[in-house]
C-alpha cells in the first residue's frame, strides 16, 4: 500500500509508505536528520508530521513523543484529537 487517505474529524490524513514515501522525502528535499521513520511519510491537512519508529515498532511524532501508537494513522488521529481540544 503506497498511499492511504482518510478524513478524521474533518481533517485529511495522508500516509505514504514504501517507495512513495521515499519519493516524497526526496521531492521535498528533507534533510537526513529530519527524515524520520524509514519508508513513512505522514501528513495532516498537507502539513508534514515528522515521525519516528522506536525499537519496538511503535510510532511517535513531532510534538507527540509520549503516547506511542501502533500505526502512523493512529498517531495522526491522536494528534488531531489533541488539536481539537484547543478549540
Amino acid at each position: 500500500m503506497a498511499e492511504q487517505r482518510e478524513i478524521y474529524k474533518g481533517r485529511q490524513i495522508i500516509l505514504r509508505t514504501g517507495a512513495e514515501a521515499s519519493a516524497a522525502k526526496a521531492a521535498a528535499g528533507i534533510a537526513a536528520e529530519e527524515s524520520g521513520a524509514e519508508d513513512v511519510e505522514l501528513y495532516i491537512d498537507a502539513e508534514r508530521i515528522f515521525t519516528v519508529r522506536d525499537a519496538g515498532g511503535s510510532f511517535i511524532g513531532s510534538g507527540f513523543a509520549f503516547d506511542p501508537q501502533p500505526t502512523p494513522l493512529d498517531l495522526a488521529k491522536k494528534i488531531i484529537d489533541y488539536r481539537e481540544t484547543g478549540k
Partner: protein
Amino acid sequence: MGIRKNQSSLSASEKAAFIAAVKGLKTNGAYDVFVAQHRAAFMASPNDPAHRGPAFLPWHREYLRRFELALQQVDPDVTIPYWDWTIDRTVGASLWSADFMGGNGTGTNRRVNTGPFAFSTGEWALTVLDPGDSTNFLTRSFGAMGSLPTQQAVSAALNVVPYDSAPWNSNSSTNTSFRSRLEVVIHNPGHMWVGGSMMAMASPNDPVFWLHHCNIDRLWAEWQRENPGAIYLPPSGTPDVVAGHGRDDPMPPWNNEASPPTPRSVLDHHALGYTYDDEPVSAGIISLTVGAQPTSASIAQAGEVDIYSFVVAAAGSHVIETQGPTDVVAALYGPNDMTTFISEDDDSGPGANSRIERNLTAGTYYVRIRHYSGSSSGPYSISVSGSAPQPGIQTIQVNGPAVQGTISAANERDMYTFTLTSAGTYTIETAGSTDCFLTLFGPDNPATFVAQDDDSGPGTNSRLALDLAPGAYFAQVRHYSPTGTGAYSISVRS
C-alpha cells in the same frame, strides 16, 4: 550531599533560587544544549538511548544529575525539586503559581502567559524545537490528553519485579518490567497531562520536565531500596538490545567521554551525590571510613537490615568486622554496585561476630548487616580496616607547605585529606594557572558534603574559608572543565 526536596515544601527563597539558576543556564546557552540532547535521543529512534528501553531510568538519572551540577555552577545550594503528582494534581497546585512554574496555557495556541517562563518576560524563548514545529513560546494544556498518575498506580508499579524483561523495548510487558511500567503507565501520562511543550521530543523546554523526572528518579530509588537484590537488566551483549541499554554499555551522548557513564555506574544515587528528603533514615546507607574507629549501631527491630558503604581508594586487603554481643551476619557487595554479591559471613569474628577479609579493588563497597535470627535484635559496632596505606589520598599538613598536584586526565578527581585538632576558621585553596574546582567533605566522612568553590581564589583558583570543627576532612580537586588538565598546588591554613 545534596537533598532533593518535594517542591511543595520549598520556601519562597528556595523557589526563587531554583528559577534564577534555571534562567542562568538559559542565558548562558547551557539550557538549550540539554534540550537538544533530549530531542536528539528521540530522533535517533529506533536507536534511542534514552526512551522505550531499559536505560530509560539510568539515562535520565545521569541527565538530571548533569543538569543539577550545571545549576550548581550558578548557585551551589540549588538542587532539583520533585513534583509528586499523586498529591499535587490540580491546576490550582502551588507548583503552578506565578512565583514558580507559572500556570496553564491559554487561548487556542495554549501559550503560557504567567510566571517566570512566560514568553512576555523576554527570558524564555524556545529555540530547540521538534522538526516542523515553529512555536517559540512555552505551551501547556493541563489535562487535555489524560490524567496524572494516582498513588494506587504508583504503588502497583513499585510492586513490579524484575527491573526489565525481554524484548527489552517498548514491547516489554508492564507486568514483568518495572522499567516499562514506570515509563509507560506513570511517566508518559505526566508529560501528556501537562501537554503542550511537555509532549514534545524537546520537552525539557518546559522546566517542569526536571521536576517530573526528578519524581520518576525518586520512585526508581524507592524501588531499588525495596528490591536490593533486583539487579539491572539486561547485561551488556544481550541480543537485540539497543546500544546504550546494556548494563555496562556506555550511554550516548556521553559515550565518547574518558569515563562514560553506564547504567551500572548510576545505580547508586547516593554515590552520585544526592539523596531525597523522604528517604527513611533507618533504611539509608551509612558511610564508613576505612581505618576509622568502629561505628556503633543496632538491629533495632526483628528483620532489620542495616546498609553501609565505604570507599576503597587503593587496591589491597581489607577487613570488615563487627564487634559486640549480637549475633549478626555481614554480607559484602560491590564494587560500585550494591547488588553484586562478594561474600557473606556469620561467625568468623570473635564470639558470634562477623569478619570478612578480602582483597578489594578501588571503588565503593556495600555491607548489609542483619541478625542471624530473624526474630532477634541487639547492638553491635562495625569497622573497616585496610592492611595497605591509601596512596590514592595524599595528606596535607595544616599550615604546612602546599602539596603539588596535577589533573592529568579528563574527569580526574584528586583527593586529599587533612586533620584539624581544634575548631576554627580555615582556608583551603588552590594555586597555579589551572582552573580548579574544589569540594570539601567531612568531618570524618568522605561522603559528607561541606562546601565547594570554583573561582574565589586568585585568577581561576578555588578558595574555601570556613569555620570547621575538629576532625578529618577530605578535599577533592577537579578541573572546572570535564576535559581540562593541568598542574596546581593545594594548601590548608588556619
